[in-house]
């Protein structure tokens, strides 16, 4: 009985935390004034916000019906895919020039880029060398 009461309060706490993170992330999306800083805020919605809401759903299912842990699937999927989509959106921002350009490479043009160093070009296969 006492554990049920504690679990219901835990559901309420998780709901408030998840909703607060969703709201704060969207406020950040609306209020920040640079494309890359705007990218930073909604990633919290995808991890902590939805994570807390799904945790509340799991605890709720544990109390009021036979327990169901399959909400973990949504959480795992979102945790895996959030960095990938954020990386793609950052590439779009760089491509469209809506942020300050990344600094030039310090030593040569092949540092941290897709360019192949001069000495390694003979080792490349023919198909890649054409590119």
């Amino acid at each position: 009985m006492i554990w049920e009461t504690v679990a219901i309060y835990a559901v309420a706490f998780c709901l408030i935390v998840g909703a607060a993170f969703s709201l704060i992330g969207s406020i950040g999306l609306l209020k920040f004034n640079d494309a890359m800083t705007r990218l930073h805020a909604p990633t919290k919605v995808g991890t902590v916000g939805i994570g807390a809401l799904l945790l509340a759903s799991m605890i709720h299912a544990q109390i009021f019906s036979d327990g169901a842990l399959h909400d973990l699937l949504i959480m795992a999927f979102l945790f895996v895919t959030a960095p990938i989509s954020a990386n793609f959106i950052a590439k779009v921002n760089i491509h469209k020039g809506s942020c300050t350009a990344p600094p030039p490479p310090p030593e040569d043009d092949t540092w941290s880029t897709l360019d192949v160093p001069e000495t390694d070009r003979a080792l490349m296969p023919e198909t890649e060398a054409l590119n």
Partner: protein
Amino acid sequence: MTLAMDVMTVALWIAFIAVAVAQVMAMIRLIIGPDTGDRILALDTMVINAIGLIVLLGIAHGSHIYFEVALIIAMLGFVSTVAYARFVLRGDIIE
């Protein structure tokens, strides 16, 4: 027990209102977004907030049938975000 249930009901209402306001804010950014990246990001946030609303609806109804809806919308949202970004970056989705 009844007090705890009342607290949970109030928390559920607060969560519904907060996530709905977050959805409206993301839609404002989708409309005014100065560049393509902001619009893709706003759409991604709207999909995630929609998943949150569906999870809240599942808690309010106390049923499990909303799980599949949330999972499919999560997968579809990720694929559509990547497709939009690839279309902007490469001019084509599948090369």
